[in-house]
Structures are given as structure tokens and as C-alpha cells.
């Protein structure tokens, strides 16, 4: 099975957040895509479940955009470099 690309992960992030893929560009600020900050918690848990990866406070301290998150998940899958 082909490992997901950062763009696959970006589309999954859009689906979890229930926003149009066109809005969830790599440059899009995650905070701008959610109604409240707790939605980011839900999304973090879902995306870790989906890809069977883990990340913690240190990993996300510098996360800001959809692209940052997609890169983090991608790196955890062993398919790329750390963000």
C-alpha cells in the first residue's frame, strides 16, 4: 500500500475539520479553520488515530499551518523529514 503523501494528509485534515479542501491549503492557519480551540484537540486525536502516529506538546509547539501538521504526520510515518 502506498504511504500517504503530505497532500493526502492535508486532504484528510480538511475532511476531519469539515472544511473545503480549497480552504485547507498548506499555508492555511489551523486556528482560522476551526470554530474553537477544542476542535483542534478533536482533530489531533482523530488524525493520530487515523495514521496510527503519536505526537505531543513539544511536537506541536511550533505548528501553525495545515502544511506544518501534514509534514509532522508525514514525518511520523517515516516517509519524510521532520518539520
Amino acid at each position, binding site marked *: 500500500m502506498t504511504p500517504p503523501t503530505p497532500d493526502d494528509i492535508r486532504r484528510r485534515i480538511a475532511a476531519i475539520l469539515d472544511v473545503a479542501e480549497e480552504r485547507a491549503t498548506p499555508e492555511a492557519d489551523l486556528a482560522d479553520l476551526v470554530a474553537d*480551540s*477544542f476542535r*483542534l*484537540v*478533536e482533530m*489531533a*486525536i*482523530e488524525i*493520530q*488515530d487515523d495514521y496510527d502516529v*503519536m*505526537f*505531543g*506538546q513539544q*511536537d*506541536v509547539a511550533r505548528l501553525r499551518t495545515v502544511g506544518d501538521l501534514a509534514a509532522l504526520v508525514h514525518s511520523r510515518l517515516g516517509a519524510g523529514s521532520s518539520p
Partner: protein
Amino acid sequence: MSLSDDELFVLSYYRSSEINGSLFFGRLARVLKPGPVQHDLTKHFADEAQHAWYWTRCIDELGSRPLKLAEAYQDRYLEAAGLPLNLMEVLAITLVFERRVINQYAKHLALPGLAPQIGATIGRIMEDERWHVQWVRDALAGLEERFGKDHVDATLRRYREADREVYADTLAEYEQRLGFLSSGLDHRSAP
């Protein structure tokens, strides 16, 4: 027996905190994968909603109406501790918070001259709270293999520190209203 303004504030604060707890667990229950944690967390969500109802009914029976409060304990808690980012962190913050809740309710229950309605409400809630601590502790132990015991322990320590800060700050801010609960107690003791 009627409620003083301070008592009404405290019971309303409990009610708001139970509502926030219910909303927190309800949202998590919606996104977790099926399994034992989803099962127990969904029950936990239902319990917190029920507790909010118990407080609403208790306040009503004592001839008052719940105050509409702008914030609950959890708001400060998450602000101080940071938003949990995985299931282990969710369970760790929950365990620390539930122990604080039991501690707080036990202090209230020990007050002399407590209205029977309040005592009965706390007693009913405490039965559920003991199970909450039990299931969360067991679930956390089950995650130690995946996350590492040291990491789980460090996460619990981080949340305990935040809890102590928030509790002390809350008591200080609401000193006048909570004074009848806190007199003679060590505000900074661990839960």
C-alpha cells in the same frame, strides 16, 4: 432552608463545571475509536450531564435559580495546562481533575449545618466520581506500554502542577465566596 448568595454561587459554579465536563467528554466521545475507552468515556460524559441536572434540581429545591456564570473551572484549567493533544494527555488531565473534584466535594460535604439536599447531591455525585477515577486510572495504565511509563508520569506531574496553581488562583479570586469552604485548609495541598 434557603441558600446564601455565596452558597448559590458555589453550587452554580459546580453546575457550570459539570456542564463543561459533559461537553468536553461528549466531544471526545464523538471522535474516539470504538473500544473500551470510548465505552467508558461515553458513560463519563453521561454522568457529568446528569450531575449538572442534580445541581440544577438541588438549587431549585432550595428555592433558588442557578446563576449564569461566564466561566467554569475547566476553562482556567485548560488555559494553565495546555490543551491535551492525544488520548493519554486527555486521560491524565481527567485523572488529576477528577481527584480535585472529589477533594472539593469531600470538603463541602464535611461542612457543618449542610442542607440535606446538598449533602444528598454530593453523595450521589461522589459515587460516580469514584468510578471515574478508577476507569481513568486503569485506562492510563493500559497506555503506559504505548507512551512509556516515564512519559505518562511526567504528564501527570505537569497537570498536577497546573491544578495546584489553578486551584490556588481560584480560591484567591473567589476568596469571599469560597471562604466558607476553604477556611483552615491548605490551599496548595495536592489533590
